[in-house]
């Protein structure tokens, strides 16, 4: 596959660092540098607080940084709004504010189980706005890891949620983020409306080909989650046609962005 004028590459799961964090300028510059080196046109990023179960003031501050980065790098950075669903009213107000500022989706962490009713108002909000929810997810049999992330979302929670809200646009974060990715793709298979992003440092040789075989080409989104060469290399070396690679690199994500109420931000 060769770069052409028409090949758009969008990283569907990225991050930049909040301005209050140490060395944020260098970290953020490294992300943009890696995008340049690998030919990544745009990245949809979120700015996360150190403590994910944070207060509204803290998530608002992170989102303010995200909006600034979107404006500073208008043709490179798309934004996800980060909220703690535990503060329901504040979270809903924040999603509206971020949407008005041009954000393209909502990023959630495993503060609660994904199918917990605390998420319902947020999911309803995103359905109304026509934007996706990108959820941190994974399945692991490593006890210590799971004890640190007891609420981490797996396919079961995604399926429960999509059953309740079939119009929702859900993205299972980083199938290559560590864990049993075979479990994840097989578990997600029945949820035909659920997308999976390919990010993470896991580059098992069959990961992408098996994901395409199991989920179909239309449900996969290219992403890095800060593992740039891993993210790019596994797609580039997959046994896929250029047309299919283009779908993963941006086509499927552009389809999602086009569902945004009022039109795509692209």
């Amino acid at each position: 596959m060769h770069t052409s004028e028409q090949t758009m590459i969008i990283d569907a799961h990225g991050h930049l660092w909040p301005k209050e964090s140490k060395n944020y300028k260098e970290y953020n510059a490294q992300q943009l540098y890696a995008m340049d080196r690998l030919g990544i046109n745009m990245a949809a990023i979120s700015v996360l607080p150190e403590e994910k179960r944070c207060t509204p003031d803290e998530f608002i501050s992170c989102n303010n940084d995200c909006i600034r980065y979107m404006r500073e790098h208008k043709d490179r950075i798309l934004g996800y709004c980060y909220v703690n669903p535990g503060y329901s009213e504040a979270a809903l107000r924040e999603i509206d504010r971020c949407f008005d500022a041009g954000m393209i989706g909502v990023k959630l962490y495993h503060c609660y189980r994904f199918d917990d009713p605390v998420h319902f108002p947020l999911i309803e909000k995103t359905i109304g706005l026509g934007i996706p929810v990108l959820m941190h997810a994974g399945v692991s049999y490593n006890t210590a890891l799971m004890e640190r992330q007891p609420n981490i979302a797996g396919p079961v929670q995604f399926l429960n949620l999509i059953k309740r809200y079939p119009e929702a646009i859900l993205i299972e974060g980083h199938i290559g983020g560590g864990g049993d990715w075979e479990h994840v793709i097989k578990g997600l298979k029945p949820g035909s409306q659920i997308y999976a992003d390919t990010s993470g440092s896991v580059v098992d040789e069959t990961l992408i080909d098996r994901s395409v075989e199991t989920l179909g080409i239309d449900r996969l989104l290219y992403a890095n989650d800060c593992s740039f060469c891993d993210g790019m290399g596994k797609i580039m070396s997959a046994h896929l046609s250029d047309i299919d690679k283009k779908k993963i690199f941006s086509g499927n994500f552009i389809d999602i962005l086009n569902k945004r109420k009022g039109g795509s931000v692209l």
Partner: protein
Amino acid sequence: MKAKPSHKISSNTLSNPGSGSIRKTDCNAYLGQWPFRETRYTEPASLIELMDSMHITQACVTPVNGLFYKDVHRANLQLSEMIKEYRTRLLPFCVINPFYPGWKEDLQTCVDRLGAKAIALYPSLHNYSLQSPQCGELLTLLGSMHIPAALSERIEDERGEHWHFKIPNIKPDEIIRTVQNFPKTKFIIRDAFILNYEKLSGKNWLIDFSRTDITLSHANMKWVKKSIDRFTFGTQMPLKTPLPAIYKIEKSDMDAKLQKKIFSENLLKFLSR
């Protein structure tokens, strides 16, 4: 789409896997079926097809069975037989367990008859300590034979481990202590975070670059360039797809001269007796 963004992105970044212009020698390849998931390219001919598609000139191959057999030497013999027609492309890394009967004789066979370029040790998997006297005896012997010891800090990502079969990592500090305690023995440290080894001095070690993304800070990249003779190229193919490890070198800001050292020169120099 309303508008096409304009960027200063690399013009040829998606040109096909890896550049063929620089020789690449992989220090961390395997032959055989991984027991916990489907693996492709498990035979020499197909592995070489994969190498060709990625412009990888040579690969140091360790037998997967050498990790899981109790008598690991049987896997060395199998490996030797498997690669006999591919010796110019596949370089054998045999496996020795210094707690198993007959290991000295096996080692001699590996070096004299099987042409082992290095000896891979899997202490966490074979249930011994790098600090044990038996392991010390093996490492001393390898030093006297000018054969490198290959250590893997990590064999499998613990996040993806099997329910019942867990392969603990070797702690970087333990590797560092071992490298320091055996200055006459050469070590190839595989699948490791290079930044954990910044304090390691001496010239008796190489570390593979496969877990180092191009987002390395300026300060860390400065250290990499200053210590360029200590880095090598490893992919863990065919368990992993090799292209990410290639990109981590090729897409970095290292010039061709430095890339050549990592991709091949350092390792070939290290393997020469």
